[in-house]
């Protein structure tokens, strides 16, 4: 269970990205975060694994306070939280296999990983992960030879290597076309249901939100302005919608 309490992030240049955000995610939830770009979605996700240092507040994960963890403890927490990104963030010049295996770095002795050595079990796991996302034949290709959808699948495979209890997905389908978006979110849904992995995912399109979310939160200018399930999204009035997306926003897709 993830509890976010009074989370505030102020960047050194004075930008307030998050203001006193509170919410709770149960285990096995598919939480979708909606909001305009710049509303703090990415910052929120990055505060959870402390790629961004929170300014104030607590993030309790299964009772442990992530914000108080020292570097060694933080690495232990991070290796249980997978992350996938809008721009995939693969090492483009390395092979797909190397990229997938790098998901195992948190479990590998540092000296081993310097010489690119992994346990045999990890290598098998990588092959399985690639098979699970449907690209078992791409293992030896260079990452930048793959199409966008394939690269994002490598990203998911990398996250799977961590045997995650939770996956943070920062706009995972924003760089992909709608058909691919369903395919990628389908993999996330499968992981969510089959492995009981909690998913925190930021999304733009409301039809995707309705289709995949078990719970939804909305951010606007760093504040939590909406909390509900996908049914609430379906029923959402135009006023409520404007509260999240601002006055000029038009309702698309839903």
């Amino acid at each position, binding site marked *: 269970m993830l509890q976010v309490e009074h989370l505030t992030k102020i960047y050194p240049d004075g930008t307030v990205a998050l203001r006193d955000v509170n919410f709770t995610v149960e285990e096995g939830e598919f939480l979708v975060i909606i909001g305009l770009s710049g509303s703090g979605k990415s910052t929120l996700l990055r505060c959870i*694994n402390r*790629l961004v240092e929170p300014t104030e507040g607590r993030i309790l994960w299964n009772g442990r306070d992530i914000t108080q963890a020292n*570097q060694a403890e933080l*690495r*232990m*927490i*991070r*290796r*249980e*939280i*997978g*992350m996938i*990104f809008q*721009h*995939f*963030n*693969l*090492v*483009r*010049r*390395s092979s797909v296999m*190397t990229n997938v295996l*790098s*998901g*195992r*770095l*948190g*479990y*590998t002795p*540092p000296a081993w*990983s*310097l010489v690119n050595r992994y346990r045999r079990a990890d290598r098998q796991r990588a092959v399985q992960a690639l098979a699970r996302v449907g690209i078992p034949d791409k293992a030896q290709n260079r990452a930048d030879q793959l199409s966008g959808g394939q690269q994002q699948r490598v*990203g998911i495979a*990398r996250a799977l*290597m*961590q045997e995650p209890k939770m996956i*943070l997905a920062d706009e995972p389908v924003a760089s992909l076309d709608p058909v691919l978006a369903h395919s990628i979110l389908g993999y996330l849904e499968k992981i969510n249901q089959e492995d009981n992995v909690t998913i925190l995912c930021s999304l733009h399109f409301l039809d995707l939100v309705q289709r995949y979310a078990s719970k939804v939160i909305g951010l606007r200018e760093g504040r939590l302005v909406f909390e509900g399930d996908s049914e609430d999204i379906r029923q959402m009035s135009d006023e409520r919608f404007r509260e999240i997306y601002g006055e000029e926003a038009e309702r698309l897709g839903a």
Partner: protein
Amino acid sequence: MSDYQSTEKRPSLIHGLLSFILPGLGQMIAGQWARGISLLISVIVLGFLSIWTIAQRARFPDYEVSTRVFILLLLQAGALLVFLIALRYLLGRFFIKDVSGQALTQVGLGIFYVLTLLLVADSLIAAAGSASDISQVFGSTGVLAAGALAAFWFWQASDAARIGADIAVPSMIPAVLIACVLIFVLGWNITKIDLPKAVREYRDTQVILRRIVWPWQSAFEYETQAVEVSAKIQAPCPEGAEGPPANQPQEDEAYIIVTPTCGELTERTLTGSIELGTELSIVGGNFAPGSTVEILWKNPIGNPFRPRGVGETTIQVGPDGSFVTNLNIPSAVIPDTAAGAQIHTLIVRQESAVVFTGNLSREMNLALVGMLETIMLGLMATFFGIILAVPISFLAARNLMSPIVTTLSGVAGGLLLMVPALWLAFIGTNQISGRIGGLEGAPLVTASTAILLVAALGTLGWRTGSWGMRTLGERAPDILSRVVTALVFGILGAALGYGLGTGFSRGILSIPLGPEAAAQLETRTAIAGAILLGTLSLVYAYRQGVHGEISIGIVVYAIVRTLMNIIRSIEPLIWALVGIIWIGPGPFAGTIALTIHTVAALGKLYSESIESIDPGPIEAIQATGANRIQTIMYAVVPQVLPPFISFTIYRWDINVRLSTIIGLVGGGGIGFILIQWIRQFQYEPAGIAVWLITITVAALDYISSEIRERFV
């Protein structure tokens, strides 16, 4: 509307006049301070520069004379300009009314001014001072400079008049152009440009140039083959003696036949009279047709010499290879003990054409060895450069260093334990190296032991110290770690202040006070510095408190970057001088010089390519729970490898070029030999060296661009 008004406005005479008296004054009064001051400074600088330049004609420049001459020239040029401006004014007033005509007269004025100046230059110079004065200065440069300065002066006066009348601020372009002309005139003189000389000397150059351009004859060894034929002659010749038997003609080798084979030596008396010896007739055959042969005489002791005063000794061989000549037997000093008949030898020697042996000459060998030394020098410097620059470049990459943040107390604890740890490392190195023969006996083991111990113990000390302080901060009351932190920083600041104070007294105070007086003050300035900086850092550390975070990464980044910038901005040539003072002339000094520069240059290139990588993979790898080294290995290294390789090869290319230059000042390699050959006027060997350098550099250039193309 404003345009209309501006044409109505008349230039302000008073501002123009003020600027005419003191350049820039009118502009300053009109409120254009920067413009006025820069004009004033320009006039002063240009004026002094002109006076200084024209005075350089004299062996012992007399600036009083040159000032006087220049001012007179300036006044004359000014007068000429006044006359021309008045002429143009009248023309514009009465004859040319339209605007384009006005513009034309403005350009015409300029051209006419320059032409007139050139035409009357001689009379202007003649009027500028006495003949001896004028012989002390560069007159023609003076005229042109004075003309330009006068134009500048008038321009700024008219500028002031327009600015004073609040007409739109005129463009500075004419002033800049005039100033450029003036500086061009002075520069022409200062750099002693002499086009006729370049043409005149060209013919003489050709002889030398040809030897440099095609020096390959002296790249090989030649042997001269000599053909020597001799005939025996007895002297003196007592009655009845017949002498040795005469030679016989040979079929296929050179021969001489001398008749008779017995005769008397030439006698030279003390009074100077000469009694010539017996005349010999020499017939030669089978020599190289058309060549010359030389006749030598060898006395019984065996010393050949060229006989003098007894006939021709250099003989032209006929087209059939034969010759005929006569020679009197020369005088030869015979020791008394060897009185009596002796056998002398007449030798005919032919220096035949030089023979190509196919061996490389000594110079060529030297040049080849030097070239190899140069290439290796560049290679070694690049190699050491890479080893040092790679770790340094990570410290100098902002994107990697800026997230590294630590607490002040952590730094204090780290320093507290790192200093004794480094001391331990030093002791340990001494102990170990002492057992295996010291730095001289086992340099590599000693060096690697030192590096390993310093790195390991230093890191250990730092980590333990900062961990200790963190634990102290968590367990004990805050005030304790606060005090410890403050004390550590206080001591650190005091040490720094002591050093700076000493340096201040030695480096700065000793300039006006002299070394003795400064030495007396040294202790006091050092203590003052220690107290000042110590207190400051103590107070700072105390106020920052235990949890005050400092970006240690950025501090390290800034220090490394600054050091690299300083090192890089000092030319490799200067580093070579440092190396030569340190090590003495030779390739090792050159290697050190190039390595130092390479580290700084590569460090900058490397760190910039690290800074320009995609940050996404770093984020992704960090999110998997990887530590810092794993993140660098997996997210940074794959991205920076291609640029690193490319920059490295590029630098190797540069280093080989630089190492030839460094050789010129004594850094070893081919440059070292080349400069000696040039100074000894040995142009062929110098040409060989130049050829080798050119070939090597071109080849490297090609190879490096080929390799780099494959990687990028």
